[in-house]
């Protein structure tokens, strides 16, 4: 049974068509249109400030994608995802700054791309380490172990030990020109934008494909009822750990991407707040939907930018508001999450689905 709405006159003759990637010409057209907007229209029309916003959306979406795999597709609730993003970011930075690369590697600009992959793998393994308790516990107890991951990784290991490497104290500064992919030095926001767009597109495609394979079906079975999944012969420990690995891998990529977007890296970029923020993003976007990740990231980042603009414009009248912007942001974020969960528990992606359905049958909805 296909999940895709087929227009009148179009029907499938084989099962493989039912599992197809782009099932109708309309979907294919829409997707190509979307790619054209991301890779051609946005770079041509956006200006500096909005590139920054777009990069933030992309970074949030990459992080939230991992959270979505864990929470939305395997039911493994995590409140420590920022730890794995941090591991990715630090792995990448340390590889670039400290690893004795052969000269031709640096000249050809291979150091950063390789470090992205290694960052993903290390973050994935780190995530599996903290996913081990998931073999025995679930629900609230698992939340606590992921919280432990956050505090142990960021507040202890990274702050106390890793940050001391090289004797720089708190932050790693990344000199301009160190982040280089092939011949391109990533030094402007538009280049970061392209890096973000490519990484995000790749990750979304990979995850979406993974979810319609055996692995994804096993994850969804575990989410819906883990005991039933086990009786069906799914090795739930293996698949849960695989889930942690994939989520951690994407978090590592997100962290390695963040390195290109910042001039200095410090543990303050990955507070517990950020872990909770990512969970908030997928709750607002919709749990169990890849659309939800993107919608949630766009909504949250834009909402915060709008609040910032509002506060700045009010700043002339109430100057103390400017000083306390961060606190207002925190409060508003909390209220938005509560309001969404109470009034719109299925998230933005559910509304999107309703709108799409409406227009599929429009104007004759019978």
């Amino acid at each position: 049974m296909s999940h895709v709405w087929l227009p009148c006159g179009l029907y499938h003759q084989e099962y493989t068509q039912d599992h197809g990637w782009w099932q109708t010409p309309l979907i294919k057209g829409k997707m190509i249109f979307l790619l054209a907007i991301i890779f051609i229209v946005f770079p041509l029309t956006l200006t500096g400030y909005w590139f920054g916003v777009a990069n933030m959306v992309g970074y949030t979406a990459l992080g939230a994608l991992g959270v979505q795999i864990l929470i939305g597709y395997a039911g493994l609730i995590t409140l420590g995802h920022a730890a794995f993003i941090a591991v990715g970011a630090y792995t990448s930075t340390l590889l670039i700054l400290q690893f004795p690369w052969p000269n031709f590697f640096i000249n050809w600009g291979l150091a950063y791309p390789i470090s992205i992959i290694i960052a993903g793998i290390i973050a994935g393994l780190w995530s599996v380490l903290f996913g081990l308790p998931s073999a025995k516990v679930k629900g609230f107890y698992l939340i606590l172990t992921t919280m432990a991951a956050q505090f142990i990784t960021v507040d202890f290991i990274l702050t106390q030990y890793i940050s001391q490497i090289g004797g720089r104290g708190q932050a790693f500064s990344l000199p301009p020109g160190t982040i280089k992919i092939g011949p391109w030095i990533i030094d402007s926001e538009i280049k970061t934008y392209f890096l973000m767009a490519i990484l995000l597109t790749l990750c979304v495609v990979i995850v979406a494909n993974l979810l319609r394979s055996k692995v994804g079906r096993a994850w969804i079975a575990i989410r819906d009822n883990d005991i039933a999944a086990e009786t069906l012969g799914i090795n739930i420990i293996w698949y849960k750990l695989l889930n942690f690995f994939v989520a951690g891998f994407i978090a590592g990529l997100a962290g390695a991407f963040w390195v290109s977007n910042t001039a200095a890296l410090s543990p303050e970029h990955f507070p517990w707040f950020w872990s909770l923020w990512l969970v908030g993003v997928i709750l607002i976007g919709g749990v169990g939907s890849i659309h939800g990740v993107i919608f949630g990231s766009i909504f949250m980042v834009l909402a915060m930018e709008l609040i910032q603009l509002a506060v700045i414009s009010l700043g002339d009248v109430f100057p103390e508001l400017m000083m306390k912007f961060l606190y207002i942001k925190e409060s508003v974020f909390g209220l938005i999450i509560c309001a969404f969960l109470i009034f719109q528990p299925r998230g933005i992606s559910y509304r999107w689905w309703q709108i799409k359905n409406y227009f599929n049958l429009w104007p004759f909805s019978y």
Partner: protein
Amino acid sequence: MELFLMTLINGIMVGGVYALVALGWVLIYKCSGVLNLAMGELTLIGAYVTLTFYQAGIPFVLSIVCTLIIGIILGILVERIFLDRLIGEPILTVIMVTVGLSFFFKGIIEFIWETKTRVFSPPIFPLEPITVGFIKISNVYLWSFILAILLFVIFAAFFKYSHWGLAMQATADDETAALSLGVSARFVYAGAWAIAFMSAGVGGALLGNVNGINISVGYLGLLVLPAVVLGGLNSIPGAIVGGITVGVLQNLSGAYLDRYFPGGVKEVFPFAFMAVFLLFKPYGFWGWERIERM
């Protein structure tokens, strides 16, 4: 040996305060099934409210009483406005609402009281420690412990002898049976939140006496989570034992492990211990083992 005994006793004293906060947490979970992650912010609110009353010239004990009253009001409000609508929703939804609440509270706290460290001035407890034999105990710890025990006794009496306390106990034990006997669920939930706000508030005020009040007191309130996990989520004696264990673990790790892992081992050790502990005893010491059926 001397060092060991001293850290042990200090740990037990601080642990008493943690146990008090943990009691509020377990009560909410037992009565309404809500897993509350906003406990840290509740302790912060208590600490700042007490401080504000104290700075206004009200004696410390009276400001604690005022904090208790404000705790009751806030607890009932929070339950009515946010959590009442979420009865029966999935666990993630409820947890994230409490997370949202914690951000909301934290933002408001920072907005009102800002982030500077504040201390109770003049200090409430005398600074020089009490010496018993060769053990020195600071006054703050001792009085916090005594006050925490006192509140425990009050709460225990409330549960054992008052009509309302019995109703809450009945709901925690078997919700359906209690409701069919005419216990008002809304009252019980509101009562649980009021008690949680009260215990967290007093806990925050006491913890604020130790090192002064800033946002990191909220982190101390978060330590209640390892405490309740050690004791098992739905056991009130477990909360007390867990709270004291966390206090002891924290102090012992600060005294002995700090040499090998300099910096901050005290803050993360309870969490690390908890993560390993869960591998061996997933339901804590006295938690109910949930038997799942398809």
